[in-house]
């Protein structure tokens, strides 16, 4: 059981996640992520896919795991890590379905995902969550350990194993194809102030 329901309604998760775990996470849920997540962003994704194409082993087994799109600042002496907020997830859209096929269950970044990823999340029962974009200093406080496990030459883009404790995230795309941004923004749009093509007709 890797999803724990907290008394205040938030959910704590810890990899490895099963399909059953993922199905308990719905758009808008506030989730606290604990345990191991793998840090990988643009250049690391590119290399991982190249390795897969070449039939070579990749730095970690994605089955049941969570990937966090982050490139931290260098840690100061005595600190585990530097600032470590999320980077834009859609830049990984091109690579993501391949990792979902291999059983990756959770993705953490910021911003929206394209239709192909949303479809793939449904097909493979996985979930995309957003951390606080630009909240790099706060995120650092939730990280207890880091270890570079591959591609050290990429500097901030190296693949890291991070140990996190209660890193807060929101479920943006769940495994049933819902999108939290669409739902969240619509009630606040003020059509009367906007040119026609921006009106959503969602407010009375």
């Amino acid at each position: 059981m890797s999803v724990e329901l907290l008394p205040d309604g938030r959910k704590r998760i810890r990899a490895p996640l099963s399909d059953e775990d993922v199905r308990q996470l719905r758009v808008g849920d506030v989730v606290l992520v604990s345990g191991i997540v793998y840090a990988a962003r643009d250049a690391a994704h590119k290399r991982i896919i190249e390795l897969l194409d070449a039939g070579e082993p990749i730095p970690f087994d994605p089955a049941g795991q969570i990937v966090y799109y982050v490139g931290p600042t260098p840690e100061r002496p005595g600190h585990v890590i530097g600032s470590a907020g999320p980077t834009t997830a859609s830049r990984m859209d091109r690579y993501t379905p391949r990792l979902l096929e291999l059983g990756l269950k959770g993705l953490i970044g910021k911003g929206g995902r394209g239709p192909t990823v949303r479809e793939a999340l449904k097909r493979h029962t996985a979930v995309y969550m957003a951390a606080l974009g630009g909240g790099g200093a706060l995120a650092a406080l939730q990280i207890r350990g880091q270890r570079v496990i591959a591609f050290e030459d990429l500097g901030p883009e190296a693949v890291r194993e991070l140990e996190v404790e209660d890193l807060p995230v929101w479920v943006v795309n769940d495994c049933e194809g819902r999108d939290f941004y669409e739902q969240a923004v619509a009630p606040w749009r003020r059509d009367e102030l906007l040119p026609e093509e921006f009106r959503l007709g969602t407010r009375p």
Partner: protein
Amino acid sequence: MGQVREVDAAEITRAVRELCMEINYKVPEDMVAAIKRAREKEESPIGRQILDLLIRNQELAAEGEYPYCQDTGYTVVFIDVGQDVHIVGGDLTDAINEGVRSGYRDAYLRASIVADPVFERRNTGDNTPAFIHTRIVPGDQIRIQVDAKGGGSENKGRHAMLKPSDGLEGVKRFVLRTVEEAGPDACPPGIIGVGIGGNFEYVAILAKRALMRKVGQPHPDPRVAELEAELFEKCNALGIGPQSLGGTQTVLAVHVETMATHIASLPVAVNIECHAHRTGTRVI
């Protein structure tokens, strides 16, 4: 003619270094105030929660241990060199880059620049080169403004050569479209820098320079100031809100800069600055 004043390149290096080291930890006062104002005005509960977190993030970063954001940016340097200044003891560009190199290293800031865009994309390891805009101005001083510009928000900028017949309405639609498409990716709420006029390259620099104004300070031309106020209201009417989780505070300010243009053209550019607005100025 005034006396020529000599300025040592090392002084420029020091100013750039200090600015890089400061701004990535201590968000400028006008930005702190802008986030507080947004917190007071935000109507959505989740939006208020997000703004509270951003205030905490500012406070934590200001303690000097963790940079405000892990993306410590492109280092953009605006340098206005008085025409009565003679820079001695080194090359201006090298002096600036040395300031970036040592400032980023010693303040534990992230190296986020790759040496070429499409071949190897090898990280230069020290956040150089800086992106430098130089102007020669009257006087015997050097004014240096450094901006640590986040890549996520930079990616959401747009540029278009509209037709003169598209007019002001066309410009407004373009700005709104850009802010809407940026959505959560540009880490709202931020500042929208708009350039109108000039030519293909000038309009982008206008938009970037617009971001360098004090947050929310209106343009001195009342017609431009009125356009800024209207765009501000309309961008916020999009309902995107903090982190795009819905709300009334999508942008903290819209700054517009304009200039002359060609009879055939209506260039427009939108440069988005995220809430990680990190800038500072030194005068030598």
